[in-house]
């Protein structure tokens, strides 16, 4: 079941307006959050700075726990940005749902497979890039042949399965959450007053669960990404 979309073509590329609006909104929300928290940065931290530093420590901690020996220090910014972008994206659809003429304009960007697959592809490209940067072409592509040359096939296809699992896990969780939320809402609206009142706790419970899932999935995405990267930046035995 695919909802109707409004698209336009520019420079031979097809754009989905609702995705663009959602992505832009998510980016703006993340930026506003971080901008608001990063005012008045002092040696003795204030409340906002403490929150921001906790966030930074949290994402740095994900990197540190999966990539040992401080090799992932330069990934701090990437993990911070992608974690909070995905987190805000996941929660955005629970807060806003703007529907104009049957076309949903504002929703979770991560409820679209294209967005999650793009994020996953960017992550895995980053992993490949860092692998080449740290090990050199020879060692990086040599890793595909380990432990035996036959494993090349498995290792090669693993890259694509990584892409699919990383992208589709996020998409599936968020999309199903939003879809069920939408179904509960439509049932509540169509069913009359009694059904609406009965559906209110169900909706609240599911919304809470979706928030939980959204946070977990953002964490899982960053953790798995850094695991993939950590496997790329060291020579396999």
């Amino acid at each position, binding site marked *: 079941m695919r909802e109707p979309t409004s698209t336009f073509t520019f420079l031979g590329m097809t754009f989905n307006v609702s995705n663009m609006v959602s*992505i832009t909104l998510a980016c703006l929300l993340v930026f506003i959050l971080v901008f608001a928290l990063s005012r008045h940065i002092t040696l003795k931290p204030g409340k906002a*700075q403490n929150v921001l530093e906790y966030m930074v420590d949290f994402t740095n901690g994900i990197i540190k726990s999966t990539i040992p020996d401080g090799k992932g220090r330069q990934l701090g910014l990437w993990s911070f*940005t992608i974690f909070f972008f995905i987190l805000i994206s996941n929660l955005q659809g629970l807060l806003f749902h703007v529907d104009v003429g049957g076309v949903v304009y504002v929703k979770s960007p991560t409820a679209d*497979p294209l967005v999650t697959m*793009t994020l996953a592809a960017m992550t895995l490209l980053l992993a490949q890039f860092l692998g080449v940067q740290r090990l050199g072409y020879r060692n990086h592509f040599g890793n595909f042949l380990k432990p035996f040359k036959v494993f090349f096939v498995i290792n090669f296809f693993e890259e694509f399965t990584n892409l699919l699992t990383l992208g589709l896990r996020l998409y599936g969780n968020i999309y199903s959450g939003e879809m069920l939320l939408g179904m509960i809402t439509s049932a509540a609206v169509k069913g009359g007053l009694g059904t609406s009142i009965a559906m209110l706790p169900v909706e609240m419970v599911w919304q809470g669960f979706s928030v939980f899932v959204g946070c977990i999935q953002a964490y899982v995405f960053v953790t798995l990404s850094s695991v993939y990267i950590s496997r790329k930046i060291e020579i396999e035995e």
Partner: protein
Amino acid sequence: MFSFSVVGAQLYVGDMAYIAVSFIILMCLIKLVAWKPVTKMMKDRSDKIANDIDSAEKSRADATKLAEQRQTELASTRQEASTIISEAKQTGQKQSDKIVEDAQNNAASMKVAAEKDIEQQRQEALANSKKDVASLSIEIASKIISKDLNSDDHKALVDSYIEGLGKHNESR
């Protein structure tokens, strides 16, 4: 990517480009606005804390050293004070002994001098009284003699009397 054929949707390349570009822009903005200052501040803070710990360690060591120094100084001062006190005691004892000895010596010499003085005065008084007796006797005698001067018998009598008197005086 094969999933889209399952869903039956079109592959929107524009969306992919848009999400990639907007993500990179977001990352750059966050780096500019928050990441750099925050990580710099966090590093500064950890440096400062490390420095503070080091300096605290150092000042603690200094304090310990100072306390030890104080302790030794205090002990030496105490010893010095006790030696000074004992010296003063000794000096005082010596002085008091000397004073007593001097006083005794003085008293003894004064006693000797006084005895000598007394003896001398006694002798002088004895001599004076002898002279007085003699002159008195002569006066008595002259008075007697002026009454009966011509008689030689009387003269002999007086002489013998005087002699007897002198002897009597000496024997006393």
